[in-house]
């Protein structure tokens, strides 16, 4: 069906991976997000009033799911939901069949799945737009757009910044996507992660080559020269030795003490939920911007949804 649509010149827009985006695409999203922020200030809009959006979350999610649903509703769309535990998937239905059926009901699909490449696969089956809301440890492009827009809005600019990605980079899909996103705009990126939890050498080399950036890899929590500090959780379950897990977690916990040497105009971002990687005392530091970042989730996802239908 998708091929048939292509043959007659109908191209369906998707958002699947940051790799599919160019710098101009991101800047274009920024303009659309600004418009959506204005719409949010005005209240509910009717840009997508004739649309039905399916949010298919095969994995647990709170913020991503709720902000996509809120974004859709603020645009006047209707949302249909899905409970993976109670669905026919439990009876062994393939993802292909599930997508084929739901695609026949709705106008767009937002999908999160633990299997990497699931969203791209879904986009090849569906005749309607598909948004990747996270596929395993691979990609989370809507989060990256939130992160990049947060940097622009909360730090005042998007380029010429020293950006530090901090925590368990290896297992966090938000970090994989963001690494490509920040490399589009910034020449200096530091990766600060405990030994064994940084990106693999191949990923680092690829980003350095593709974007001409300088990537510095550090195994100690050094953040003194950074303008944007992006923190993610260090997961205890990644360590075989619980004592080592505790030691590393303590070493990489962001505290007021760690922040003493940091720049005064640095901003701290986090995809949330945060557990104990940032001390509560940091929440009241003026540099902590993660709650404001989370609030941007709705206008960013409104822009993504409206853009799929050429409504913004």
């Amino acid at each position, binding site marked *: 069906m998708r091929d048939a649509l292509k043959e007659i010149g109908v191209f369906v827009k998707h958002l699947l991976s940051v790799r599919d985006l160019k710098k101009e695409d991101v800047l274009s999203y920024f303009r659309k997000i600004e418009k959506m922020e204005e719409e949010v200030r005005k209240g509910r809009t009717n840009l997508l009033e004739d649309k039905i959006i399916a949010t298919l979350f095969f994995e647990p999610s709170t913020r991503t799911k709720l902000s996509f649903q809120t974004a859709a509703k603020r645009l006047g769309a209707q949302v249909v939901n899905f409970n993976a535990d109670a669905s026919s998937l439990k009876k062994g239905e393939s*993802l292909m069949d599930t997508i084929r059926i739901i695609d026949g009901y709705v106008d767009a699909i937002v999908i999160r799945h633990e299997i990497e490449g699931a969203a*791209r*696969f879904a986009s090849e089956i569906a005749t309607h737009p598909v948004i990747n809301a996270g596929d395993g440890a691979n990609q989370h492009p809507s989060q990256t757009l939130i992160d990049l827009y947060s940097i622009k809005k909360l730090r005042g600019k998007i380029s010429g910044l020293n950006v530090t990605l901090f925590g368990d980079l290896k297992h966090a899909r938000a970090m994989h996507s963001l690494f490509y996103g920040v490399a589009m705009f910034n020449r200096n990126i530091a990766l600060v992660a405990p030994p064994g939890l940084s990106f693999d050498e*191949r990923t680092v080399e*690829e980003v350095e080559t593709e974007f001409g950036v300088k990537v510095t890899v550090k195994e100690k929590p050094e953040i003194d020269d950074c303008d944007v500090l992006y923190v993610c959780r260090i997961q205890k379950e990644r360590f075989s030795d619980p004592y080592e897990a505790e030691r590393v977690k303590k070493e990489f916990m962001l505290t007021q003490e760690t922040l003493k040497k940091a720049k005064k105009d640095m901003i701290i971002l986090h995809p949330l939920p945060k557990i104990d990687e940032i001390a509560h005392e940091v929440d009241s530091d003026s540099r902590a911007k993660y709650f404001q970042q989370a609030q941007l989730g709705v206008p960013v996802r409104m822009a993504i949804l409206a853009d799929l239908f050429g409504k913004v």
Partner: protein
Amino acid sequence: MPLKVEKIENGTVIDHISSGEGLRVMKILGIGLGFSARFALIANVKSKKMGKKDILKIEEKYIDEKDFDKIALVAPSASVNIVKGGRVAKKKNVAMPARIDGVLACPNPKCITNFEQVASAFFVEKKTLRCAYCERSFSAGELI
């Protein structure tokens, strides 16, 4: 006395394989135990162009064009000759394509291609091949 391997009447001759890569070409084409056709790998043959080369002859079997991509992965200098009635009916130099569809399996156990009925796809990049689905990159050696 020079080693002689007879000509084939019908089948495929893969020539100009870099010396030492013939076994890898066999592996990637699935030629080994259980392969029914008669075949011969002639290694370290003198070559004006290459110094030394390997040649693989497969009798009564015409390899598929999509296998040319696989050969290019391990022997980018190879040429494939389709022989019919003792004459070369078709000759083609293999070339690294921009994308390889359906012939290599993704080694990532969490990749969708290992769960659903979908043909694998890899983008050929400078030093690696990237899975079009899970987006992980692999060296040619990891995929063969």
